[in-house]
């Protein structure tokens, strides 16, 4: 562990890496939790014109603290437009107006499929999770999808127990066969690194590793035989500006 690594924790690295993925001006449909933290951090740092859309009906929200929930009043108060929930799904998400869908996940598989429904059998679940929420259609309709979740063998599995939201199905070409308009998950940001789908197979491959994290640790936290990109990049550690902005955002909440 380098001196720099000691100055921030892996959750902060995850939030910063996720935030960096959002280009300025992009329209982002934001899930609550880690995606919302990352998106708001991006807006506070390199992407002031990021457009945040929340499924609660806030289009162009500009919260000055992290919203406590997807329906936090600060979203309505700062939004360009407040619309009904049916409208946000029908007029704003479904037609493909949104560049990036930013999702969390309980379980994610080798092909980026997401499970937020049940661990185990549907009728007799080991763990009953919250369910689909907006995710199935966010994953289908946004031009691309970013997923952010901490990496662990429980969370990163060969095949999800339940496909709540489609990533790349069972491999490249499945989205086209299903007629899903967006490109699906193009990036999975974790506390250890960044995974991206292989251009040929759509299997998630480790393409970037965070400063100070050994490759073996990432493999050990992945429930399938993780492939490592030939040119594995190193995530630059959080800058002073990024860390300060992130901590301020969290402190204000």
């Amino acid at each position, binding site marked *: 562990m380098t001196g720099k690594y000691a100055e921030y924790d892996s959750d902060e690295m995850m939030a910063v890496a996720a935030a960096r993925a959002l280009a300025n001006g992009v329209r982002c449909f934001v899930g*609550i939790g880690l995606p919302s933290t990352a998106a708001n951090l991006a807006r506070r740092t390199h992407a002031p014109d990021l457009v945040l859309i929340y499924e609660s009906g806030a289009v162009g929200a500009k919260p000055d603290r992290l919203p*406590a929930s997807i329906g936090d009043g600060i979203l309505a108060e700062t939004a360009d437009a*407040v619309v009904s929930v049916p409208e946000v*799904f029908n007029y704003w998400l479904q037609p493909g107006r949104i560049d990036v869908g930013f999702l969390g996940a309980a379980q994610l598989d080798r092909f980026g499929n997401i499970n937020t429904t049940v661990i185990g059998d549907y009728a007799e679940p080991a763990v*009953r999770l919250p*369910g689909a929420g907006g995710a199935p*259609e966010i994953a*289908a309709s946004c031009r691309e999808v970013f997923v952010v979740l901490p990496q662990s063998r429980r969370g990163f599995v060969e095949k999800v127990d339940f*496909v709540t939201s489609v990533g790349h199905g069972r491999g490249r070409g499945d989205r086209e066969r299903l007629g899903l308009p967006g490109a699906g998950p193009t990036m999975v940001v974790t506390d250890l690194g960044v995974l991206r789908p292989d251009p040929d197979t759509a299997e998630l491959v480790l393409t970037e590793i965070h400063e100070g994290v050994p490759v073996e640790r990432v493999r050990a936290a992945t429930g399938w035989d993780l492939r490592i990109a030939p040119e594995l990049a190193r995530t630059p550690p959080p800058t002073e500006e990024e860390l300060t902005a992130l901590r301020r955002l969290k402190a204000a909440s």
Partner: protein
Amino acid sequence: MAEILALAEAVERLVRDGDTVALEGFTHLIPVRAGHEIIRRRRRDLTLVRMTPDIVYDQLIGAGCARKLVFSWGGNPGVGSLHRFRDAVRHGWPAPLELEEHSHAGMANRYVAGASGLPFAVLRGYTGTDLPRHTPTIEPITCPFTGERLAAVPALNPDVTVIHAQRADRAGNVQLWGLVGVQKEAVLAARRSLVTVEEIVPELTPVPDGVVLPSWVVTAVAEVPRGAHPSYAQGYYERDNDYYAAWDPISRDRDRFERWLADEVYREAA
């Protein structure tokens, strides 16, 4: 025209055993006090409908009011899971709970169809997911012009919808604003509706992003200040995030939950 009633009487008259009941509110304006009144009146065999069942549904389920839940996301927002919900799904306690689960887009469109007097709605949804294998209320439909395949979902028409709003006038016209969720659709889709409000005022003045439900589409209005607590009512009070956090340990344990029910819900009836 809406009748202005006390909450207890409104729930007594509008919510019946076996009903399909929707208490809507997307984080904002959740009709929590009305939910407690349903528990207090010991309604049974309800089919509970809501996009985002949270702690008031955990309470209704734990109290044994529900036999079925129609929903798209069930959790304690910002905190974690609903433990009474989980206990009912996994162990059938205090009663088995049948599930009918959709996505938000599907549920929202089911209410839209219900409000529109249509038997179904069409959306781009569910494709490739495991939801249609477990949820019988999702069917394919073909566009008669392009041949494209889409998803159809049936209308939701609750026997009774309950919402909370900022205010009503004395004639029973209702006004809400801020994040208005799917409340208008849920009321218009329902056979009967009850709106609890922060206050009854002589006259409704227009408000940006406001929704007005005319008295003649509402069955009953009850004045229930802080009726949405621990959720919030924009312009009246903030969300009580501590309450959501405090719910987690109460709900994890059946005994603690039952004590909570006795102390916080049933006692008020006496």
